[in-house]
């Protein structure tokens, strides 16, 4: 019954000074909105970053830093010396060595400098590439002069008016190659070899036969399900220690990278959340300010109520409910505003928008806390007013 009384008195008071109420609501809702928007954007960015890796698969791994660029011809690791690796490392499910070289690519009299990848038949599948037109290279293409082009070359061909690229000829290493496929742009932020988008893929053995170059630049692979990733990495490291003496290969796995990114992104979310909380505290101080002004302005009213028999806790209850209502409605508006803000930003950045319950619960929880915390002091002050002094106030 008393609670109803507090709510009634608080509502009337808030409605009687709409401007002040509005300003307090604005402050608190901007605070809540910034917490929700910041935390949501942190989560969205995290998902966005992880998605590119998850699309690639968490079992993906890449081994690099194994080629010696100063040597040509037969390098440190020829293709045949990699054949034994899957047998020595049972955790590996798939395994695709590749070589990167550089060549001038000539098409219809135009020439471009481009990366040329020598790839094995399973390179396309291991990298989970998507074919835009035509077909990927396979094992039967080995030693044949067929190639698959990446998005950059495709774009340059479009610019010189070639729209039907399948079957077109490219001059690479002074040899005529037939385009059998075009791959779609692969996500930039992944572990895949960057040369896929930039260059041309030709069969590894064709590259070896034409240029005499048999030096594996890197290896992409996939691990079996449910293997211990760090143990597998250690095992692979051990194998390479035996075949490469001069340098330490660099092994990256998607799952480790995702773990690291998760950590970084959680840190980002935390940081954004803290920034949001600062805004919220400013909003809370606004509520406290409004409440203190309200208490000061209503000293006489407090005196009358005390004379009529209101206890200290009745006065306190009324003012706390007032602050609580401010924060409740400010919080609701802030949640809507925050979700809207996060949606707008993700829309603008073309991220996949989603809202998890964390920021909503956080927003609700925090606004209730702010209301009680910043409402408590003014309410306490109001309740401590001596009735006689309150009554004398104008």
């Amino acid at each position, binding site marked *: *019954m*008393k609670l*109803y*009384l507090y709510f009634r008195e608080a509502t*009337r*008071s808030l409605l*009687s000074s709409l401007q002040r109420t509005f300003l307090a609501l604005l402050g608190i809702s901007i605070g809540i909105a910034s917490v929700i928007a910041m935390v949501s954007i942190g989560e969205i960015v995290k998902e966005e970053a992880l998605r590119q890796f998850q699309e690639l698969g968490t079992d993906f791994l890449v081994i690099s830093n194994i080629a010696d660029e100063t040597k040509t011809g037969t390098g440190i690791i020829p293709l045949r010396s990699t054949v034994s690796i899957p047998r020595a490392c049972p955790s590996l499910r798939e395994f695709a060595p590749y070589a990167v070289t550089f060549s001038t690519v000539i098409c219809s009299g135009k020439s471009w400098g481009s990366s040329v990848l020598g790839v094995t038949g399973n390179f396309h599948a291991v990298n989970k590439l998507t074919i835009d037109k035509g077909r990927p290279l396979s094992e039967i293409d080995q030693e044949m002069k067929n190639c698959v082009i990446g998005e950059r070359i495709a774009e340059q061909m479009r610019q010189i008016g070639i729209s039907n690229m399948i079957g077109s000829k490219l001059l690479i290493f002074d040899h005529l190659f037939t385009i059998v496929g075009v791959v779609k742009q692969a996500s930039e932020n992944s572990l895949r070899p960057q040369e896929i988008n930039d260059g041309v893929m030709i069969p590894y053995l064709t590259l070896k036969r034409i240029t005499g170059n048999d030096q594996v630049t890197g290896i992409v692979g996939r691990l079996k399900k449910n293997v211990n990733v760090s143990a597998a990495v250690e095992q692979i490291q051990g194998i390479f220690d035996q075949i490469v003496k001069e340098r330490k290969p660099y092994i990256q796995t998607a799952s480790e990278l995702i773990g690291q990114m998760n950590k970084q992104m959680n840190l980002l979310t935390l940081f954004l959340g803290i920034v949001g909380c600062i805004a919220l505290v400013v909003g809370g101080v606004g509520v406290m300010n409004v409440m203190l002004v309200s208490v000061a302005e209503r000293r*006489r*009213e407090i005196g*009358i*109520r*005390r*004379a*009529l*028999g*209101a*206890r*200290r806790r*009745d006065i306190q209850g009324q003012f706390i409910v007032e602050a609580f209502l401010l924060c409740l409605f400010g919080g609701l508006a802030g949640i809507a505003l925050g979700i809207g803000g996060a949606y707008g930003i993700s829309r603008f950045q073309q991220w996949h928008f989603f809202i998890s319950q964390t920021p909503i619960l956080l927003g609700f929880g925090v606004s209730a806390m702010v209301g009680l915390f910043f409402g408590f002091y003014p309410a306490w002050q109001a309740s401590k007013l*001596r*009735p*006689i002094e309150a*009554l004398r106030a104008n």
Partner: protein
Amino acid sequence: MTAETRATPVIELKGIKKTFRVGVLDLPILKGIDLSINKGEMTAITGTSGGGKSTLMNIIGLLDEPTAGAYSFEGREVINLDDDELSSIRNKKIGFVFQQFNLLPRLSAAENVAMPLLYRGESIGKSDATARTFLEKVGMGDRADHNPMELSGGQQQRVAIARALAGNPSIILADEPTGALDTKVGQEIMDLFLRLNKEDGITIVMITHDPRIAAQCPKRFNICDGLIKSESEAVS
């Protein structure tokens, strides 16, 4: 009414002193007041302004504490009660009527009158019904849903009296109840007090500086310079 309850005064003050501290000076306002008010009496407290009558009224109304002295309310010592107990006595036993009416501006007349009952924990329906009964009694039944701003001074004071009566208190304390009203309306309010005293036996203590109002009260105290200068009781 038994002889026993008649024997216990509603209010009994003994040697009440009140000193205000102004800077380094102690300023005595009340210098030892003895007075008792019995059930059913209508008492006026008169005196020059600054003579301490408002201070005395605040002490009687448990809004302020004396510096020294004894105060028993219906035989109960009230000097050392805690804030909640004092609030409870104000709520249940004392009805206040102020010079400036002191109605809560955002509430209707009926809601104002119901306020002490709500603080007591009564239900909304019941307290609203009680409030309307008392508004009827003071001749404001048709204005129950008006806001104080829409009422004249005299009407506001009637609502305030209804509010003081609604809690069925042991005593009504009225501080200059006619002070903000013109003579005619002031007399109407005085008539209402007299009627309530006579017909319902309500105990009333009234502060006034208006001799014409004071003259209508059967019992009078004159306070001058912090002491009761004269006490007179009309033979009724």
